[in-house]
Structures are given as structure tokens and as C-alpha cells.
């Protein structure tokens, strides 16, 4: 028989998951919603800022918005397109890498030499000679217009010191979205690794790990987080908060993965793979994990929701992100004193959290359906 392989279409594993995911309308829309939310978070200073994007003053055109950017925002603005450019031009041998190194050196030197100008002025009075961002307010800019309800001027109203809620939410999206994403990634990494190893090898490791998990689970998670933050005296550090939330919420995932692995190891196909000459790592990564992926993904999307909510409880208790950094949970907890007359203070951040969590859940469910070939795509 004369067959040449390249005439035959064979669909790859990830290719098929991508195709099946795209067949699910809910998942597709929810995934785009999440992308939009992340884009809003990434470009927050260009969406909500009291400084103009372009201003025509006495000295010609000025770009005050760029003067107010922090170093990390500059890095993001330069390095992300740079990485993309290097990726697409990587076949041109060394040239893109040289350019990239030069660009990094130039950026870092100028960042070290300059400081962001964060004056309290705003450019809203320039009228026609300035182009403002869509929301012409900075997140921490007070104004005399306290508790003004949603209007064309303040889309989501203002709070007790007259800060614009829409601007605070746009900037707070950075905290809330990255905490949800990073905390769950940490929990996934720890939970899947430990739970998988325990389920596969059993024995003393399994016993020791699960007694430890049972001890951890005895503490209310919030209490555990507060203790860790207290010990490291690190409130208001977003990375510590992400790590702490991640490191206290992996136990459920570990339990789930261990259970899945125990069930799968008992089935004949891992044994058949071993009889074909597959080693432990091969069996774990290519046979057991893909079969356990559905429940893991669903559980992870719920984890995102709970991480965002845990961060808001922390802010509420005064251990989370504090001013000047805002988060959705922080705005929500500020609203509690005024809820009886200023509904917008709680409504909009609550809506943002709801939309995010719902989108993650839809994406999780669509992924689960896409991963398991026995399930029909809805």
C-alpha cells in the first residue's frame, strides 16, 4: 500500500480542543468578554485619566498622559509589542534580538532617569484643544461632586469624596483580574502537581499530604490568609496577596485531582500504556492528566471567582489592597456605609465582578465540553 502521510489530515489534540471550543457560542462570547476586560485593565491609564492624551499648549503639542505613566506601565507598553515583534521576526536570525536588547537597554535607562509626573492638575478645562481619554478622571481624584448618581459626566456616579467610580473600576480591574488569574494559576500548579503525585504513587506521600491538607482545611481560609499576611507584614503588596490566596486555595484542587487519578489508574488504559513501554511521567502527563482536565478546568474557573471575592473580603477587613490602589472588592466594601441612598456605589463593582465570574464559568464549561470527546458540543 502506497500512502503518503502528508496527504492525510490529522487533527492535533489542542487544535481539536480549540475547534470544539469555538463551536460553543457561550464559551466563545465569554472568552471575548474576558479578553475585553483584560484589555481594559492593561490600558487603564489610557481609558480613565485626568490628563489629556494630546494637548495643544503654548509650546506646541504635548502628551501629558505619557508623563504620568509608571515604570511598570512603560515596560508593559514597550515590551509586549516587542515580544510579539521578536516572535514574528524570529526567522530573521539575530537582527530582531539585537534590536530587542537595544530597546530594552534604552527603555530601562530612560526609566531610571525619569520620574512620573503625578500632579493633581487635570486637563478637562482645555476644551477643544485637548483630546481626553473616554473617562476624563483619575481613580484617586477627589471632586466637590460627592455622591452624584450616574450621569453623562460620571458614568457610574461618584463616591463620598467625589471620586469617579468608573475610573476607579477601570483601574481596579487590574488588581481584581490579575489576582483572580495569578492566584488560580498558583493553586492549579500546586494542587494538580501534589494531588496528581499523591493519586498516582499513593503510599506515604499520599498519606502525609492528605493529613496536611486536612489540617489546613480545619482553619477558615480567611483566617489563614490573615495570619500569613500578618506574619509577613505585607498588606498592600499585590503579589503577596496573590501568592497567599493561591497557596491557601489549592487543597480542594489537590483532593479533586487525586480522586480523578485514583479512578483513572484503576482503568485498563494506563496499564495498556505501560505495556507499550510508557514511563510514569509519560502516563501521568499524556494519559491521566488529559482525562482529568474537564473537572480541573471547571473547578479552576470557580477558583477565579472565589479569589476575586476573597480579595474583596480582605480589602473590606483592611488587609487587602489599600488606597491609592483600588480593586473592585475595595470599591464594593467602601459602599457599605452609603448603600441605603447611593446604590451605584455597590451596583457597578458588583456587576463587574458578576460579569467576570460568569464569563470565567462559561469559558470553563465550554472548555470541559471541548476537552471530552464523548460530550456533544452544545
Amino acid at each position, binding site marked *: 500500500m502506497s500512502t503518503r502521510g502528508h496527504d492525510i489530515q490529522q487533527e492535533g489534540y489542542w487544535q481539536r480542543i480549540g475547534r470544539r471550543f469555538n463551536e460553543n457560542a457561550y464559551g466563545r462570547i465569554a472568552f471575548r468578554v474576558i479578553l475585553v476586560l483584560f484589555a481594559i485593565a492593561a490600558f487603564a491609564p489610557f481609558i480613565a485619566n485626568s490628563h489629556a492624551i494630546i494637548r495643544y499648549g503654548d509650546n506646541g503639542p504635548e502628551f501629558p498622559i505619557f508623563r504620568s505613566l509608571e515604570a511598570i506601565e512603560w515596560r508593559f507598553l514597550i515590551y509586549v509589542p516587542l515580544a510579539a515583534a521578536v516572535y514574528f521576526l524570529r526567522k530573521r536570525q539575530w537582527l530582531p534580538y539585537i534590536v530587542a536588547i537595544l530597546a530594552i537597554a534604552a527603555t530601562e535607562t530612560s526609566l531610571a532617569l525619569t520620574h512620573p509626573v503625578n500632579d493633581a492638575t487635570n486637563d478637562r478645562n482645555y476644551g477643544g484643544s485637548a483630546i481626553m481619554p473616554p473617562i476624563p478622571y483619575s481613580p484617586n481624584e477627589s471632586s466637590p461632586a460627592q455622591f452624584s448618581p450616574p450621569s453623562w459626566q460620571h458614568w457610574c456616579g461618584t463616591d463620598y469624596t467625589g471620586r469617579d467610580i468608573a475610573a476607579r473600576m477601570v483601574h481596579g480591574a487590574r488588581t481584581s483580574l490579575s489576582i483572580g488569574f495569578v492566584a488560580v494559576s498558583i493553586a492549579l500548579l500546586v494542587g494538580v502537581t501534589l494531588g496528581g503525585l499523591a493519586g498516582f504513587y499513593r503510599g506515604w506521600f499520599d498519606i502525609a499530604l492528605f493529613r496536611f491538607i486536612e489540617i489546613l482545611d480545619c482553619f477558615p481560609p480567611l483566617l489563614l490568609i490573615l495570619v500569613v499576611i500578618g506574619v509577613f507584614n505585607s498588606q498592600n503588596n499585590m503579589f503577596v496577596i496573590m501568592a497567599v490566596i493561591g497557596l491557601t486555595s489549592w487543597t480542594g484542587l489537590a483532593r479533586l485531582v487525586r480522586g480523578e487519578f485514583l479512578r483513572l489508574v484503576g482503568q485498563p488504559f494506563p496499564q*495498556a500504556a505501560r505495556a507499550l513501554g510508557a514511563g510514569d511521567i509519560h502516563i501521568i502527563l499524556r494519559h491521566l492528566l488529559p482525562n482529568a482536565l474537564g473537572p480541573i478546568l471547571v473547578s479552576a474557573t470557580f477558583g477565579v471567582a472565589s479569589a476575586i471575592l476573597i480579595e474583596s473580603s480582605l480589602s473590606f477587613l483592611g488587609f487587602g489592597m489599600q488606597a491609592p490602589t483600588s480593586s473592585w472588592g475595595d470599591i464594593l466594601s467602601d459602599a457599605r456605609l452609603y448603600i441605603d441612598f447611593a446604590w451605584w456605589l455597590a451596583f457597578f463593582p458588583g456587576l463587574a465582578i458578576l460579569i467576570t465570574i460568569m464569563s470565567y464559568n462559561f469559558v470553563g464549561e465550554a472548555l470541559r465540553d471541548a476537552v*471530552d470527546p464523548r460530550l456533544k458540543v452544545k
Partner: protein
Amino acid sequence: MPSLLSVENLAIQFGPPDDPVRAVDGITFRMEPGETLAVVGESGSGKSVSALALTRLLAAPPARYVSGRINFDGRDVLKMPERELRELRGAKIAYIFQEPGSSLNPVFTIGYQIREAIELHRPDVRDVTAEIVSALDQVGIRDPASRLNDYPHQLSGGMQQRVMIAMALACKPRLLVADEPTTALDVTIQKQIMDLLKQLKGSTNMAILLITHNFGLVSDFADRVVVMFRGKIVEAGPTAEILRNPQHPYTRALIDCVPKLGQKQRRLKTIDYAGIK
């Protein structure tokens, strides 16, 4: 000339050391290249355990290899390090199992799974897809190129077992261990699978170790037969001879259990263990 496989006085125990269960109790047999050997016995007689032990697939613990030697191609399997065992499994000794449906990974296409087998042992194959297609073609799957993207649950039991056989043959092993390959299939498919194995036996110089509880499969398939009972080999010899003239009472009882054509029988015979020991 040395045998392809020789098992000497192999004993395997389970359970606590002070009160062990001897699943395999000192068995000895040989296989020559290209030979077909059938191991016959009822459930629990130790035949599957012996088969898995050939490449040390039984995890120890709980199993304990108490004594004996397994020589494959001049090397002692019981003393091999894990690395060499992985090269032995699949590449030199391949298995097909009883339940084809659950022996295939449910979330991967059959093309992907055969590719995996080839990539594990034959990294030098250039056109893997063509190799997969010819493997599927070899086991009698019609239109193999369009079956590649099928999932195991989309195939019938007989087709699944054919895919398992294709996977096992993809690495051109020297010994194929078929552990009750037809038990989970219905009778007409059993016949097809046995015919396929017989045809493959003719076209490759591969030795086959057939494990079964069904004497009916043995008669026109195996060159030699080994009968196992309670972990021991009670009788061994050329197939025709054993079928014609069984010596051990257990063998006789087992052969009598197979209903014969043209013979009027009210009740099917069962084994009367009291008469054996």
C-alpha cells in the same frame, strides 16, 4: 540455539509475607521464535499474572517475585533496570488485553494513540502518518486514512480490538502476548479476531502467547498448549496431542466442558473439583 523466551520456576506471591497467596507457583516453559503457545486455565489459575510478569508489569509491591528466572532473548527480565524494561515493553514484547474499549485512552483519537506507540520506540520513522495507516490497514480496518480521527467510543468492540492489535504490531515486536483477546467480544467477532491473529502469525515472524480459558480457540491456532491450574502447570505439549489424549484430570474436565457438535446434551458439563485433587 537459545529460546526466544524461557521461564524457569517462576513464583509470584501476593498478600502478607506470613500468609501469602501463591498466584504463580513455580512454572517453567519455553517459547521459540515464531511459535504460538496457548496458556489455558480458568479464572484465578495464574495465567494473566504470569503474562504480566513477562515484562514485570505487575507492580511490586503488592506482587512479589519470589523465585525463578525469565529469560527473554538472553536477558533476565527480573533483573532489568526500569529503563531497559521500558524498551522491552512494546518494542519486543507487546500486549493486547481483554477489554479493548477501556484499554484505549478515551480522549485521544486512535491515530494519535498509534502515533504514540511508534514515537515511543521507533523515533527514526520519517512518515509516521503513513506508518499508522499501514498499521490500521494490516489489521483489516477499511478506509484507514479516514478512521485516524475517530475516537475509541466511535468504534465497535471488534474494531477497537483491531486498533489495539495495530498498536501492538506498530513497533514490530518479537512476541505478542494476547491476554484473553476475545473474551469481551461476541462470538462472530471472536472468530474474526482469531482469524486476524492467525493471518498475522503467517505474515510476520512473531511469536504469540495466547491466554485463554476457552479450549475451543486453541485447537486450530496454537502450536503448543500449557494448561494451568491453581498457579501450577499441570500439563504441556503439542496441541493436537493434548486435545486427543489429555493426561491430567483437570485438562480432561476442561476439554469436556466445551460442548461438541452433533452430540446431544441435556446439560452443559461443569468441572467437579472434588475429582481432581
